[in-house]
């Protein structure tokens, strides 16, 4: 079984019609549901709900407080490699883009990792482009040997892998998987990914599920908002999260809300998602599934990130660089996307405390030595 049939059904779902038909009463009903249905989520995404944002925010804020307290989980991304064989038209690492390419050697990685760990961060997200020959599972395993020394929690945001490969990552100490479908619109997806392994829509769509089966503790999904019909992508993202939550109830499912931002290259997204729309989506998600993790990255501006603290976000990145080796090396490298919020870890912590939030660095300490069994 796979999410694909549901995805296909949702792609031809008369969403615009349904959104237009939503009344204020429908939205209020969704707000008072103990457990929200798909129709409730649609009601929360509607134009009718768009003018009831404050009411939605009050509910979302209450739910976030009940389920997560006044805490924000902090992490940072570390780009290990920007070699890439894909030609994704919206991405700074597109194989066609003439930018300097590099991949961290293990000793360089150690330097980066140390620097990041010195800021207090304990949760790392490692990223690569799609170049399995270079940034291979073996390479990643050797990186994990280094990173495990510094970080109790490491997630990966890399090319889609098979279940066996994910299992190898889990064995190597990876506990989280982040993978964005970019867009759930299969036809659009084809045009956005003209060449390279990422062209395979279905393989990518099923990857989060493979991650769940392979033993990932956290699986983070999302669509790059603005690439396509963002409301439809938002709906399918929510249903994808639901599918995973129901089937793999032992996995912590989270959703990220990346919005298209400027990057190297000429691609223009189908739409720009406004702040208002972005907030509506976040509120709808929080109300729809109160225990869903919600991640907002440094694509977003500092003021925006500060303002959304009570609205449902649970994880934020800090001290970010999207360049390879960007935490220590002062190169004129090219990042994957432009960062809007360049605040350091200390600055983020100060901001959070100022708003009455506690920054959380560590959620758990791995004591099950599943990754050292082989070495015994």
């Amino acid at each position, binding site marked *: 079984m796979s999410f694909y049939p549901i995805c296909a059904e949702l792609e031809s779902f008369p969403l615009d019609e349904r959104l237009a038909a939503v009344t204020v*009463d429908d939205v*209020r*009903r969704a707000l*008072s549901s103990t457990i929200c249905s798909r129709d409730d989520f649609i009601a929360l995404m509607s134009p009718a709900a768009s003018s009831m944002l404050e009411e939605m925010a*009050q509910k979302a804020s209450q739910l976030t407080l009940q389920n997560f307290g006044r805490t924000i989980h902090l992490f940072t991304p570390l780009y290990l490699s920007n070699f890439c064989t894909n030609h994704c038209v919206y991405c700074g690492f597109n194989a066609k883009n003439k930018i300097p390419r590099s991949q961290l050697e293990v000793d360089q990685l150690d330097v980066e990792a140390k620097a990041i760990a010195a800021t207090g961060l304990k949760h790392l997200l490692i990223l690569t482009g799609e170049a399995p020959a270079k940034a291979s599972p073996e390479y990643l395993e050797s990186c994990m040997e280094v990173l495990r020394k510094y970080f109790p929690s490491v997630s990966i945001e890399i090319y889609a892998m098979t279940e066996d490969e994910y299992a190898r990552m889990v064995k190597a100490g990876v506990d989280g998987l982040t993978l964005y479908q970019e867009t759930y619109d299969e036809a659009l997806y084809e045009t956005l990914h003209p060449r390279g392994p990422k062209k395979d829509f279905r393989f990518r769509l099923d990857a989060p599920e493979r991650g769940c089966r392979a033993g990932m503790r956290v699986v983070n999904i999302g669509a790059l908002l603005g690439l396509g019909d963002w409301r439809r992508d938002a709906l399918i993202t929510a249903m994808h999260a639901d599918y995973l939550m129901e089937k793999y109830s032992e996995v912590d499912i989270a959703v990220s809300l990346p919005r298209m931002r400027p990057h190297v290259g000429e691609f223009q997204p189908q739409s720009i998602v406004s702040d208002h729309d972005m*907030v509506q989506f976040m509120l709808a998600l929080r109300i729809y599934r109160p225990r869903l993790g919600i991640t907002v990255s440094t694509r977003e501006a500092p003021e925006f990130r500060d303002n959304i603290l009570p*609205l449902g976000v649970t994880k934020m990145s800090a001290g970010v660089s999207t360049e390879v080796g960007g935490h220590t090396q002062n190169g004129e490298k090219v990042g994957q996307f432009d960062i809007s919020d360049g605040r350091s870890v200390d600055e983020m912590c100060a901001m959070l405390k100022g708003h009455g939030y506690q920054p959380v660095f560590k959620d758990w300490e791995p004591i099950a030595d599943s990754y050292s069994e082989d070495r015994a």
Partner: protein
Amino acid sequence: MNSDLFKIGGLELESRLLTGTGKYADDAVIPGVCEASGSQVITVALRRVDFESDTGNVMDCIPKHMQLLPNTSGARTAEEAVRIARLAKAMGCGDWIKIEVISDNKYLLPDGYETAKATEILANEGFVVFPYVNADLYVARSLVDAGAAAVMPLGSPIGTNRGLKTREMVRILIDEIALPIIVDAGIGRPSEACEAMEMGADAVLVNTAIATASDPLMMAKAFGRAVKAGREAYLSGPGARQRQASASSPLTGFLSEG
């Protein structure tokens, strides 16, 4: 024509009220109760024949159209439940069985683990299994895996008539478990049966509240109506409750700036 039939165990039932034959002062009331309540499924227990006395046969009081649901009351383990189930089936009244595995004589709470074990064995033998359990999500999931035809969570302990003490947990089962949820045990009043149905339960089983009422026939009728009312309320969707105005400062004011 009823388009909301209760599809269970290969049957299509008009009534979502299951009833029982226990605790009656006089078994002769049972046919009237079946008619007044509209119930189409009735439980019985299996016991040794008492050769010394002639207490009459409860089967003579059960209308022929009723679907029999024997229970495994008395079983303390899965093994005992399986044995009783096979004996019940050998009576030739069908292959429906309600599994009750209770080794707690203080509260009569069911043993979910043994129940799941018995469910798996009996489902594999072709029984239509109705397991009676606590309203526990993990137990319910194991019953789904074991091949049960439904899940029967208790509203409150047997005979206490305390109503839906487990309502929050039952609500979770209704939302999370793909099998029909039949609330059993503890329903003391028609309003409680109505509430269970309004929450989305597929059916309820009521025995004690009817059998021990001072007027079982009228109580049976009341329960029949209550179950119908609750079901219709559920199907028509609850109205949106007006939220109270909140005095806290605006959370979304920042969106209008700029």
